[in-house]
């Protein structure tokens, strides 16, 4: 934690800001999902940063938290994408797919 801004920290803050801005301003579901993912990456970067700041060198616990977080983010995003696709095929019109999932 020096007086010079940590580029890693700045990157994390930028990702958080961009993600939040995207979530608030965009209406399109795909863009919103992307914004959530960018925000999530900012959170994961923050966790990595926290791990580095911990006394006694890199702390493995935040790393484990990032791994768990990534797994959750991937599955939630996949579910979100499936929903986006379903809503788009509905908007496109009469192409009704059977409920197969």
């Amino acid at each position, binding site marked *: 934690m020096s007086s010079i801004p940590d580029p890693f920290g700045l990157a994390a803050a930028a990702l958080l800001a961009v993600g939040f801005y995207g979530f608030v301003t965009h209406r399109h579901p795909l863009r919103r999902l992307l914004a959530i993912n960018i925000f999530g990456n900012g*959170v994961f970067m923050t966790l990595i940063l926290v791990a580095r700041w911990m006394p006694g060198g890199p702390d493995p616990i*935040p790393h484990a938290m990032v791994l768990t977080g990534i797994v959750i983010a991937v599955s939630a995003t996949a579910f979100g994408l499936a929903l986006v696709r379903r809503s788009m095929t509905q908007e496109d019109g009469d192409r009704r797919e059977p409920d197969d999932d």
Partner: protein
Amino acid sequence: MTEHLPVLAVFLPLLGGVLQFLLGSRGLPVWPLAVAALTVGCVLLLVGAVGSNGSIEHAIGGWDPPLGIRLRADGLAAVMLLLTAVVGAAVSVYALGPHGKASPQATHFWALWLLLWGSLNALFLSADLFNIYVTLELVTLSAIPLVLLAGPGKTVAAALRYLQFALFGSLLYLLGVAITYGLAGSLDLALVGPALADGGLAAGLAAGCLIGGVLVKAAIVPCHVWLPPAHGNAPAAVSAVLSALVVKAAVYLLLRFWTEPLAGLSGTLVAQLLGALGAAAIFYGSIQAFRQERLKLVVAYSTVAQLGYMLLFFPLAVSQAWDGAVYHGLAHGVAKASLFLATGNVIAYVGHDRLRELRGLDRPLALSVFAFGLASVSIMGLPPSGGFVAKWLLLSAAVETGQWWWAVVLIIGGLLAAAYIIRVLRYAFLQAPGPAVDVQGPVPSAVMAWPATLLGLLAILMGFTAAPTLALLGGLPGATS
């Protein structure tokens, strides 16, 4: 045996749900019902043990924190587990009606419902911040597919919006967890308190992220926009679970954080702000409920309003407010589940839930409308119901701490609730006689009518069971009296 009960309460429904997926429609409905019955039995034993011996802790697999995961059942967790078991049992019986026969939809319902039940139990038993994040995500990812079971046509947009808000809320929460870990070097709810208390600006930021993330999940105004479409379009059994338990779990976390890890931080200003959000939720939700044209949306907006009462704990913050806020959560959970199940029966019979066209409901739907009326008594906060006891406790707390404005909020909130409930009952009973519908749907069978009625009766009975429940809850954590 006793110390393994928390593990069983989590893993029985989780494994039962996963196996239901693998079994497909085989074993329906015997398997999920057996799992549900075992889960209820397990939770009852656990609650009994907490009631007689106090908190129970269990480190899973014998691994101690920080490496392992610690489950903890204290008074607050016990009453929430009890609520989940009661509502869960009723919903499981009710679901035999719409989802009793073997079909892909029924398989999905039972598997997801058991997963949701297990995730909720895990959330209430979690004792560290990160584990709570994981269980929050489990709850979300099993709750949203349940909404979709109503059919793809009307629920995809609602589910998508629900997912976006839920994901954003939990990431915000995770950011708070990250900062907290950086400050305290621990995630244990009981250990991070001191480090947060003298953490300065960073601790404030952490608390803001934790509270903000949970507020989004709890659908507190202004983050409520996802709730009415999701709860209003889901199948009846699912709406009951979502309104009675899932959003309640988020408010539970607020109470938990405020009294444990954030106890050293909780400033008066933030407390008043949270109370103001609660008041805004009560007014906005009630007024919106009054303006809805569909019965189910009335009930959904009523949830937005009723959750606000639990936030009134924060500015009041005395033992009576603690008792009142938690008891309100329990009473609302039981009453709201009853309302949604009864509404489901009305929709099954009439084929729609447009308020202005509801009439002649009294005869064929007598039991369901009776349930609706009983639960409404608790929602309005009339004696002798559970809702009355909770509001009375909150009112006493407002008077005790000399903050009369919260008493005004409570009284106006009760009147608004009476307005939107009586509007529904007026349409149901007092409209011009005539055939309700041209083509009547099936009259709800006993398994669909009685769970709603029993929950409605319980909502009234809770006016008399406050003392043992609050004894189980235990006093406000950290309070001297």
